[in-house]
């Protein structure tokens, strides 16, 4: 259980005992069961953030001072100064390993300084010898040299920096007319670290933050890295990806509030389903529109197929696992990639482009109702609101699509808004009434 939840529970126990809800010995057994807990103090978090920001600013300032006087230095001195940030960063990391390995501010601060110094060193040498520009290669080498640092210090900041660098590299590589297949190698390089964090400190704030970063990275990176030689395949790929997120969060992070996977999965599914209710995504897709101009690397397009199948297989495996655990509440989400695949096939058939619109309008309607019902049944206002929001979005978008006039649309929006607020009010009252009526 999340430490914050345990602290809250411990705070509630005396009140529950006093109100006669639970006996004193039950409270003691609960305390014994969860044991002592030390939540992250806000002051320590502030120190950590200051450490990271401070070292990054110091490093940046030193480089700017060097840059200002650069033209006065001869080549030998420039070469020496090019190594200086790197050696300094390495010395700091070495000292942290030796004396301060238990200190999070030292680990995070020294790792970000060395991470920046790697790039600065290569860039300074590039300037010294007027090396021609190849931003993608520069970023790639920088990333590779930073991987050991992540494992050495277990640095969250360095990993976040690495994630950002992965996206930057893949964007530049695609922009240069090449491919970004190495994105998956770069991701694979840090997966053992992330897996280890999950096993050892699943609910730690740093682990959850990296979970969010991973989801964002995959959502954005997948789109950049796809070669897109087969138009529309992203529909199936992304549907499978968000379903994997959702099912993974539901199975591996069920009891952890603030975990990213279920949020990304659920929100991603609703947004994608909504996008799929518009016709612009279903025209000119499929093999008939296969892309072969110079910007597309055809052999790299094989990656698109491999990834789509891999994500579909992963989603299917997670769905089977959910069914085997009788988690039938996951099934409405698990069918999403199957619907996307069927719709993609149908849209390839001449005259079939409008059928997916019907499929996803129905799907989103049903999904919204299921989410709303689930929220009401479980007494979770946020979930119920999520269902209402999904339905409201769907209705709103359909009204934008329609040929209704301003007056009709205005009335419809008012009715929707009143309905939304009214439902919310009713739900809030229902939940608080249900809570009061619980037997003592």
């Amino acid at each position, binding site marked *: 259980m999340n430490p914050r939840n345990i602290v809250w529970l411990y705070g509630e126990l005396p009140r529950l005992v006093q109100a006669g809800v639970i006996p004193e010995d039950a409270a003691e057994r609960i305390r014994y069961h969860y044991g002592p807990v030390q939540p992250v103090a806000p002051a320590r978090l502030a120190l950590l953030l200051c450490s990271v920001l401070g070292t990054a600013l110091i490093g940046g300032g030193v480089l700017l001072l060097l*840059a*200002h006087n*650069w*033209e006065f230095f001869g080549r030998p001195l420039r*070469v020496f100064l*090019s*190594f200086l940030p*790197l*050696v300094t960063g*390495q010395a700091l*990391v*070495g000292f942290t*390993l030796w004396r301060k390995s238990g200190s999070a501010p030292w680990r995070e601060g020294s790792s970000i300084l060395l991470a920046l110094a*790697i*790039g600065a*060193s*290569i*860039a300074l*040498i*590039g*300037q*010294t*010898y*007027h*090396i*021609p*520009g190849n*931003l993608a290669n*520069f970023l790639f*080498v920088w990333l590779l*040299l930073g991987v*050991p*640092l992540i*494992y*050495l210090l277990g640095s969250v900041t360095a990993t976040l920096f690495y994630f950002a660098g992965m996206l930057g590299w893949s964007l530049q590589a695609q922009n240069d007319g090449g491919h970004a297949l190495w994105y998956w190698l770069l991701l694979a390089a840090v997966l053992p670290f992330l897996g280890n964090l999950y096993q050892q400190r699943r609910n730690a704030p740093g682990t959850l933050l990296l979970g969010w970063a991973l989801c964002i990275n995959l959502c954005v990176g997948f789109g950049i890295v796809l070669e897109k030689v087969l138009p529309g395949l992203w529909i199936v790929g992304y549907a499978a990806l968000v379903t994997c997120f959702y099912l993974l969060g539901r199975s591996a992070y069920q009891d952890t509030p603030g975990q990213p996977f279920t949020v990304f999965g659920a929100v991603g599914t609703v947004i994608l389903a909504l996008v799929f209710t518009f016709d612009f995504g279903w025209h000119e897709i499929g093999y008939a529109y296969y892309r072969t101009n110079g910007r597309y690397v055809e052999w790299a397009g094989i990656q698109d197929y491999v990834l789509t199948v891999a994500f579909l297989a992963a989603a299917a495996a997670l769905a089977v696992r959910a069914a085997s655990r009788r988690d039938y509440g996951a099934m409405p989400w698990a069918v999403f990639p199957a619907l996307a695949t069927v719709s993609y096939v149908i849209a390839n058939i001449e005259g079939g482009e409008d059928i997916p619109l019907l499929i996803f309008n129905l799907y989103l309607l049903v999904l919204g109702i299921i989410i709303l019902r689930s929220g009401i049944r479980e007494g979770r206002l946020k979930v119920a609101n999520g269902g209402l929001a999904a339905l409201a979005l769907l209705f709103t978008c359909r009204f934008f699509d329609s040929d209704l006039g301003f007056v009709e649309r205005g009335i419809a929006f008012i009715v929707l808004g009143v309905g939304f607020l009214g439902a919310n009010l009713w739900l809030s009252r229902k939940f608080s009434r249900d809570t009061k009526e619980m037997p003592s």
Partner: protein
Amino acid sequence: MIMSRWALFAVMAVAQLAVPFSMIYQREQILSQGAPYKFRCGPVDPYDAFRGRYVALTLLDTTLEHWKGEPFNGDRPVYALLGLDEQGFAKIADVRYTKPGSGDYLRVTAYAFGGDDISLQVTLPFDRYYMDEFQAPAAEIAYRNEARSEEGAHVVVRVRKGEGVIEGLYLGDTPIEEYLLQEAAKAGESP
């Protein structure tokens, strides 16, 4: 566990030092042992946020007209054999898929274009000369003025085994750094 951490640190440190060291070593070899070639050029001046301020170089004499050789399409590196013109400036004598057995050459990309009369556009591996960020704009202005003159601007490149390193950028026969100092001194002396 502790030993493996220090082993990982050592491997990391060596790898991180090896990359810049190999960059330096390779280029110092070229600068000390490479043959010097003068390439005519004209200027532009963008800003590269990642790697500092530089004068972007547009090298001249890189289009070979009436090309009768291979129909290069820029999909992989090729080799440009270098020679000298009547004024002693570098020229591209030939372009091949394979490394020449003798003579100085550079690894380049080449793209053939045109209908009946094909030309070959060669892209040389030098596109920038790094300068102090406050001097680079002044350098561009100096370029624009000098480019119209007979002497013009050129870079001296040391070439060795297909690679080249820029040794200096010259306006006429004067290194650009010296030229800018002279201009600054003249501006200081004028009433």
